């Protein structure tokens, strides 16, 4: 990898001030996307700002009936947290399906959300669970945060502090893994709230999206037969060596059905 200047910071303020003063900085949290990218020389930052030891970003708590997860919580923290398991089981299950145990010990939720990989798992959960992303200077609704492939609403001198999730009655995440990379060829998160249902899809397109027609049908009646006649428009889906867009369209419907049967 190219050389860079490494900085370890202890506060968000320090990190933000380095983000403003360095020429082309990158934030390092768990490093499980950034370090492979550096090794492949796909990125050449002038400075690496290691935020992994900032103290107040790694806790998980329930506050005002919302689940709060600090940006530095690892996937393993999320999957094994009693607070996550007792409130949003689907989110714990999702975290358990990311990478492998060693990756889950290092990769963080904040890093994954900031990176906005179109095949990452968390975006589906954030959008389905009406999450709010808290940053060093603002808050964002998840739906407005993910803009496109590797593109978010966050500015260059902004850092994610944590994510606030609404607690649903129940939820489920179903994913079809690429057998080589483990990334989602498609992933569907369904969250059932008191008055509505949210269905969000990752991996199928360039960015996470909601299946509004499916949501409406399920809000009226929550069973598989109520979505029988809905066809998934796959015209804008990813079409690559792993799967055609039509295949992904079918996959999304199958995963929706699997998630529904999980929750009945």
């Amino acid at each position, binding site marked *: 990898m190219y050389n860079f200047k490494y900085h370890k910071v202890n506060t968000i303020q320090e990190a933000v001030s380095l983000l403003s003063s360095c020429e082309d900085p990158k934030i390092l949290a768990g490093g499980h996307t950034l370090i492979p990218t550096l090794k492949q020389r796909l990125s050449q930052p002038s400075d690496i700002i290691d935020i992994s030891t900032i103290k107040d970003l790694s806790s998980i708590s329930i506050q005002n009936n919302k689940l709060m997860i600090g940006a530095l919580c690892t996937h393993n923290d999320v999957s094994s947290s009693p607070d996550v398991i007792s409130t949003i089981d689907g989110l714990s299950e999702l975290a358990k399906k990311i990478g492998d*145990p060693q990756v889950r010990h*290092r990769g963080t939720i904040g890093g994954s959300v900031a990176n906005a990989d179109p095949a990452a798992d968390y975006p589906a959960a954030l959008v389905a669970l009406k999450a709010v992303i808290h940053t060093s200077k603002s808050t964002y609704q998840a739906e407005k945060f993910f803009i496109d492939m590797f593109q978010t609403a966050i500015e260059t001198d902004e850092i994610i502090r944590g994510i606030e999730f609404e607690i649903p009655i129940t939820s489920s995440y179903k994913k079809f893994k690429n057998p080589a990379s483990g990334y989602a060829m498609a992933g569907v998160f369904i969250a059932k709230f008191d008055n509505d249902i949210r269905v969000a899809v990752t991996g199928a397109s360039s960015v996470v999206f909601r299946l509004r027609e499916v949501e409406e049908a399920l809000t009226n009646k929550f069973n598989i037969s109520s979505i029988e006649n809905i066809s998934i428009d796959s015209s804008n889906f990813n079409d690559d060596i792993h799967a055609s867009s039509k295949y992904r369209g079918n996959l999304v419907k199958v995963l929706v059905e699997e998630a529904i049967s999980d929750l009945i």
Partner: protein
Amino acid sequence: MTKINTSINGKIYSDEVEDNTLLVDFLREKLGLTGTHVGCDTSQCGACVVHLDGNSVKSCTTLASQVEGKELLTIEGLAKDDDLHPIQKSFQNNHALQCGFCTPGLVMSSLDLLNKNKNPSEYEIREWFEGHICRCTGYKNIIKAVQEAIAL
């Protein structure tokens, strides 16, 4: 250059590293701890697994600077003199290795699994090894070795 202080296999090390040094390169090239291997160098094969503050991690995907103030355990830290660690013995007993390249990582990973789950099922062992690749054994004897180590 970044200065790091770290405990490796119970011994304190203070050193200066280039900012872009990977942990695995620091261990192998600077400290001569060559038991930790570089297999794929893309965080997939698990030959480089070490323990960082009690969790198994891939040292090819960690910067040496990131272990400042932390505790590491590598494969060299398991055997006591000539006495192999029980997991190393069970790998030997079950012919759980052929070329041995993936073995240090698998042994470190097995130890982390058994530290966290005293009695894993075969399914849980197989799932735990998702981040490891062994091209010789077909995994069967590795699973048997872990199952034997449960009893040790």
